[in-house]
């Protein structure tokens, strides 16, 4: 038997290094909560897990018809369906992650009022659960690429950093919004609305090529969007296209880092008060 550890209860804040250690200690719980979220989500549904693919596929088809067939927008040399679908699934990882995370702490109010575990686990599990949806959608993307006989290039390596970046961004924003939402339920509604707006200024269904053609002087503005860079990086892994704009990506990446730091700090500041103000 080892010497039992001593738990210290004090008004001090949990340090960030402690948060790191907790991540390792509570990994079982994190995975279990991810599993809970996934298995509960599609209980008592008729087509179950097919919803995961159905949602992005349907919206991609609609946009492919409208923008690709009718308006005939350029799509970086890809069939419009592939272009729109790839944009939708990486955007879905971001938007669904934030959407599920933002209400997560409030939904588990009973839990956090009764048992201790690091609070970040709940929003992180919500975002984590979208990784599974994302993985399934990505497999379907590969199938689509094969169907269109689009060659897979070495650019595929960019898939991973793009997904990780989006995951981190969604986790950070999800943490901050979930903690804020614990006090004022307005934040969840605000997040849902904000995501809708942001989808329109992100290169999900259309390419920034269109903007570069019309107002090249305003292109930098579009890259202040934290999702602009990651989406284009993700699409680069599919297309290997020469349309990837390095300076744009760098701008977006810088914004990402700032957002992540701010959000984690916001969560850390609010963390201890969540249980008393929820």
């Amino acid at each position, binding site marked *: 038997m080892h010497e039992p550890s001593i738990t210290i209860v004090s*008004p001090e804040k949990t340090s960030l290094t402690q948060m790191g250690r907790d991540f390792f200690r509570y990994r079982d719980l994190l995975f279990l909560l991810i599993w809970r979220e996934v298995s509960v989500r599609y209980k008592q549904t008729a087509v179950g897990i097919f919803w995961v693919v159905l949602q992005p596929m349907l919206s991609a088809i609609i946009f492919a018809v409208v923008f690709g067939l009718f308006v005939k927008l350029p799509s970086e040399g890809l069939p419009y369906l592939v272009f729109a679908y790839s944009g939708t699934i990486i955007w879905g990882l971001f938007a669904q992650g934030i959407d599920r995370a933002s209400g997560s702490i409030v939904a588990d109010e009973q839990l956090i009022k009764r048992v201790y575990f690091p609070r970040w686990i709940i929003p992180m599990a919500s975002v984590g659960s979208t990784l599974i949806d994302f993985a399934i959608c990505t497999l379907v993307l590969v199938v689509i690429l094969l169907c269109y006989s689009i060659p897979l290039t070495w650019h595929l390596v960019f898939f991973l950093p793009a997904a990780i970046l989006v995951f981190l961004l969604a986790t950070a924003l999800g943490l901050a919004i979930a903690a804020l939402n614990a006090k004022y339920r307005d934040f969840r509604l605000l997040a849902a609305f904000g995501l809708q707006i942001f989808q329109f200024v992100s290169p999900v269904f259309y390419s920034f090529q269109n903007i570069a053609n019309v107002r090249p002087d305003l292109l930098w503005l579009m890259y202040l969007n934290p999702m602009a860079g990651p989406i284009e990086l993700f699409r680069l892994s599919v297309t290997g296209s020469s349309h990837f704009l390095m300076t744009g990506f760098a701008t977006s990446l810088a914004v990402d880092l700032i957002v992540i730091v701010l959000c984690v700090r916001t969560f850390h500041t609010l963390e201890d008060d969540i249980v*008393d103000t929820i």
Partner: protein
Amino acid sequence: MTSSTPSDFSGSILAEKLGKSYPMRLGVGSTQLKFNEVVTRQLARCFSPGQWGQKQGYFWALKDVSFEIHPGELIGLVGSNGSGKSTLLKVLAKVTKPTTGRAFLRGRVGSLLEVGTGFHPELTGFENIYLSGTILGMSRAEIAKNFDEIVAFSEIGPFLQIPIKRLSSGMAMRLAFSVAAHLNPDILLIDEALSVGDAGFQKKCIAKMQSFVASGATVLFVTHDIGLVNKWCKRVLLLDKGHLVEDGPALSVIPKYLQAANPVTTYRVQFEKNPLAEKTGLSLRELVVNSGEAVRHGLPFRVDVAFETLLPQQRLAFSIVLSSLDGTKLVSCDSDLPGEKISLEANRNYGISITMRRLDLSPGSYLLDVAFRQDDAISLDQRPGCVRVEVLPPEDDSYSPNLAASGTRPVFDWTLNPS
């Protein structure tokens, strides 16, 4: 300030001047302010210079609480409603941070602040054992090791693959308790969890708790059940308005608790609103003892209760219990004993009355508990010891006080047969 462990800490729990305050406007029940209310309030402040710099008030749910507990102690935490018992457990369990002070807990801490923590209604019993166990702090390997024992303890084996929303609430609760009972922590914090479940299961849980304590674990539990404390706890902590006012053997603390908590003899009580009414959908309003008449041995005894429903109620039962001042339950009446359950509409006022045809209790002082519960376990509103009932001897001199050796004296016959 760094929190290093004091060198002389050899016990199981050490609390040093623990305090917890809440801003007054949030209170304990947290009446949430809307965002626009905050804004208008802040604006109003700006325009009324008299209030500038005025700090908002704080409510201390816990203040300067210090104690030390040694391994192997089974300790009861008592106090009237709002005395800070639950807050103390929440602070020790790290659910909420203290505002002041520190505490040290040696070894693994298991907290059971509510039965069924972490259960999800859509998942099966099997899945919920893993979910709840992990949330309470067990590793997957430990759950797997104890799995069969947990299932056996809960007695719901055949229903393990059914979503628990389809189980009766009593069964779900048994399963939840079984998971918690197999935590095997060094320190176990329990908040009134034992008040649920049927008597047989309760006994099983107490036996389990005792085996913990026997093996050197520490148990700190909150309860209103003085009988339980008297029977099992050698040491009792008494909280009053957030302060630790008594800490000592049950025999000396319990009378002080009863003195502080017991109402004076009265025949009519107006209840404060049930703090859990939003959730349970029921709140007692008023109680009248014996229609305002003196309570006498050998005569009928009647209790009338007025209550309101906030939600529709099903399978409801009302019960009254008379206990001695040390908490031993002596007589009880349950409205569902004839097998009838009550169903009620939401948002209405009702009255219910129970009459014992003959009160057999010997003259003396007793405490009256009234409670509404659903099925056998879920308490909707309970007011333990809300009235002190003074039982008087019958008016005709048929009662001889000299012979009042036992708590009750039933109507009886006797015969003498020459052999």
